[in-house]
């Protein structure tokens, strides 16, 4: 996947709908573009379709109608394996392989991409440092790590093959508030350096305002608004207001 040369959106949704085979509708009329280097946050409550939207990007699900384009090509044209190896994927609770050491977990994509072993070792060492983990942890198993450490390993694994796109599905959702704040700060610092195109799913308004360059609010399978954080706080859309009210404390001065 070629990085940072062409301008224009990296990921585009054109009138996408997704239905279960049983007919139940999860997404409808979704059109959205994600620009290079931005962090687009998909915000919404459980069942609003944000995780499905994320999975449409790496072809874990295919649109029932409409199309999703990544780097200009529709996800159905892409070889799904190639597409996914060019997109970092970080999920809640990290989804680490419990029978792999930290090192093997981080090295997953480089290994299946057949990098030479010395290059993999060097990359793992580099990534451990990047996400602020002690190099001695590389021989440990996920169960021997704290929640925060596991999530850092998850981020390192997502970044391993240096993909231009990173998908993050509530990556900090299962952490205690202090660890979460710590990882959010580190994510911001990391993103400033790496300039990845990030799509970030969360239901936490605070997290969305802090991390997003734009926030896409979803409700019942539809996109409500896409706005930068400051405009989001000032939006008069009733659904946005409801969200802001629910998180009253965040929007000091903007409370209705």
């Amino acid at each position, binding site marked *: 996947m070629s990085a940072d040369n062409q301008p224009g959106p990296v990921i585009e949704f054109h009138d996408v709908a997704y239905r279960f085979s049983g007919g139940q509708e999860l997404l409808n009329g979704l059109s959205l573009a994600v620009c290079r280097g931005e962090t687009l946050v998909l915000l919404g409550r459980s069942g609003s379709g944000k995780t499905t939207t994320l*999975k449409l990007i*790496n072809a*874990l699900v295919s649109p029932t109608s409409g199309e999703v384009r990544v780097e200009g090509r529709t996800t159905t044209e892409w070889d*799904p*394996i*190639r*597409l*996914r*190896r060019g997109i970092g*994927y970080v*999920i*809640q*609770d*990290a*989804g*680490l*392989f*419990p*029978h792999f050491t930290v090192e093997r977990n981080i090295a*997953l*994509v480089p290994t*299946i991409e057949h990098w030479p072993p010395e290059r993999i070792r060097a990359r793992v060492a580099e990534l451990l440092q990047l996400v602020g983990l002690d190099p001695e942890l590389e021989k440990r*198993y996920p*169960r021997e790590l704290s929640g925060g450490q596991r999530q850092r390993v998850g981020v390192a*694994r*997502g970044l391993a093959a240096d993909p231009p796109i990173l*998908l993050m599905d509530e990556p900090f959702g299962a952490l205690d508030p202090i660890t979460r704040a710590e990882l959010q700060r580190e994510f911001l610092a990391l993103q400033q350096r790496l300039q990845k195109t990030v799509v970030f799913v969360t239901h936490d308004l605070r997290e969305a305002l802090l991390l997003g360059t734009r926030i896409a609010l979803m409700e019942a399978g539809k996109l409500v608004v896409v706005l930068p954080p400051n405009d989001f706080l000032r939006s008069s859309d009733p659904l946005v207001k409801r969200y802001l009210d629910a998180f009253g404390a965040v929007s000091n001065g903007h409370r209705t």
Partner: protein
Amino acid sequence: MNVFQFILQNHTEVLEHMREHLWMVVASTFLAVIIGIPLGILISRKPGWDKPILGGANIIQTVPSLALFGFLLPLPWIGARSERLAILALTLYALLPLIRNTYAGINGVDRAVVEAGRGMGMTDRQLLWQVQLPLALGVIIAGVRVAAVISVGLATIAAAIGAGGLGEYIFRGLAMVNNQLILVGAIPAAALALLADFTLGWLERRLSPA
């Protein structure tokens, strides 16, 4: 005569029957493993195949063992030697725990882990060999364990069709109304069952991840 005295005095014969018994159990469990595990993998990947295959294995399980030996008797090659017949019957009985545990083991792997692997671009084959099978291994070995212990018990029936094994003493004891003789078959059989259970239980713990 005391059971242990009998075993000591006839130890070559008892050992020979134990060897026959063990051979039937090992051969049938091995065959069930090489048939049952691939079938379990197959039904975990092909939606809709699970019900007929698990149902079929279930039906076999409900056939009374003596009747199953009888059903298989007319088969060519198999029916010609009672030992082959016994091994086939024991294999059929051992299939259900193996298919079921392989299937349950693979389906029991944390969905988030499998989806993370798929989302990062692992192929189906890589997911199976590097993630699903290693994580299901403990459950699969538990299936082998159940199958082996059941086989040790069922193999005593094989003596009824002349396949030998420790069942010889049990049937002889029944015919002669000699409880001591029944125990000469039953005690070593129970010991074999415990041994199989213990060994495979140890293996199960060793190979279980996390």
